[in-house]
């Protein structure tokens, strides 16, 4: 969908209205979406499309995806969560996922930050060094 500058600006304003203490308030998000839909503006779909993108990026910033080959023991999970909270604040939600391609080790992604301690990453680095 073609999103023009004005729609982007409006979506950004609406997104900022949904923040409370720099965190997204879900009830506000629902309210905003409902209001834009009922307003019936011609550029409504474009605004909502960009609004959705901003929400997605915000969600990614506050979500830690922890990937491993085996199930991570509970104590290790707790240690990882504690470490992530120390670094990224208390509002990071963690998701554990299974990814056999890693061969061994753990890969953590929070927004655009990646901590890759997997064997696959090391093999790739080794391959590049050749």
């Amino acid at each position, binding site marked *: 969908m073609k999103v023009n500058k004005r729609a982007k600006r409006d979506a950004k304003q609406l997104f900022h209205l949904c923040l409370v203490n720099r965190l997204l308030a879900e009830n506000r998000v629902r309210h905003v979406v409902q209001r834009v839909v009922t307003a019936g503006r011609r550029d409504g779909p474009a605004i909502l499309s960009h609004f959705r993108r901003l929400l997605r990026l915000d969600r990614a910033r506050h979500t830690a995806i922890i990937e491993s080959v085996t199930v991570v023991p509970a104590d290790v999970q707790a240690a990882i969560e504690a470490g992530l909270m120390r670094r990224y604040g208390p509002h990071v939600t963690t998701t554990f996922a299974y990814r056999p391609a890693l061969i061994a080790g753990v890969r953590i992604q929070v927004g*655009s*930050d*990646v901590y890759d301690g997997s064997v696959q990453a090391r093999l790739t680095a080794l391959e590049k060094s050749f």
Partner: protein
Amino acid sequence: MSNLLMEIEAQIAGARTAAARQNVGSIRELGDGVAKIEGLTDAMLNEMIDLGDGVTGLVLNLEETEVGVIILGDYTQLKEGDEARTTGKLLQVPVGKSLLGRVVNVLGQPLDGKGPIKSDISYPVEKIAPGIMRRRSVDQPVQTGIMAIDAMIPIGRGQRELIIGDRATGKTTICIDTIISQAELNKAAEAAGDSSYRPLYCIYVAIGQKQSTVARVIAVLEEAGAMPYSIIVSSAASDSAANQYLVPFAGAAMGEWFMDNGMDALIVYDDLSKHAVAYRQVSLVLKRPSGREAYPGDVFYLHSRLLERAARVGEKYGNGSLTALPIIETQAGDVSAYVPTNVISITDGQIYLETDLFYQGVRPAISVGLSVSRVGSAAQLKAMKQVAGQLKGELAQFRELAAFAQFGSDLDAKTQAQIDRGKRIMEIFKQTQYHPIPVEVQVAVIWAVQNGYVDRVPVPRVRAFQSTFMDFLVTRHVELLATIKREHTLSDALKAELKTVADAFTQTWT
């Protein structure tokens, strides 16, 4: 033994392999050599981005939710959603003497099939130009070997002299002549073991040129034996706009290495009109706001930051220099277009080539009235100043009088003499391409013209006279030429000797 095993086990248990933090993003949009990447929150301007599959990108736009990256290389394998990561490195190119004699692309990779380039030094492509305190004034000449330039529009080491003109007026030829002249001077100094001579290395940057044109330039330089002192950096017309935009900066980085290491270099940007067009293309694809003629607002800054990198640095900083010869192609002689006026105002003078003169047979087709060198006269050889000081004025007078004489009115003897002298000077300045003339020969020839030795020669025979006189000097009076070259000035004794030689020649020449 059990203790040892326990120790090793303890060490293994305690060993931690730190996972390095990486900054990644994913490609959101891809097309026309430009990618929009979401994420990459740590990306820096001009940072290299690893796009996978050995493809590299360069960050040009930093936006709130994404970065705009120009892709260097084949982007056909990339697709939306692919992962990209920051490298923490700015775009760099190999530099050093190992590049001499080579033809390379924008990344400094060889294009000539002569094997890999052995250089362990790299310079960033974008670099801040030397500041005021590092610079010193231009006072050493660049001998182009083109008589009209060395006599009337002298260029100094560290100067930026624009070469401007319509298509097919001989802009590139002037630059190639200059490169050949430097190679000849370098070779002569090497052969004579002259350690006081500072060799001038040349870099020819081809921006958006046809591959055949670049191949021709290489062939000419090879034939003239100039390649060992030259580097050719090429981004041909078939390359992406991103590569064409970056190539002069890569060339400048290679030239800066010579300057930073106390050597002298000359860089030719052929041409900045095509460079501006490539930058406009990149900017439009990056959706930057466009201004006059759809060029982005920073097209002046684009060229000023490039040309400011040409400088002569002080003794404390190695006494090196980088001379720039940017080329601009005008449309129907219009020097008041956007990019030409920008570059004219940035440079320290311009050599303007006229189509009319070119087709009248005046080659190089330099328009003396519109050409100027703002700082080069300080670098001109004293002997040349002595003989050519009045030339520009005389030619200006000649043009004025010649225009007046077209009305067919009777002319007084003085005016007629001025017109005759002007015609002969114009003939003397005609020169065959790729045959630079050594400065000492130029001095002797211009001295002969100024002292009336050519006045009796019919205008159509002036070039034959000049050619024979030059041969006479080079073959029979090498010592006289060597003295002019060594002393850099025309003493009374030298003038007397020149007179004797010129008299002897005119008696024998028919």
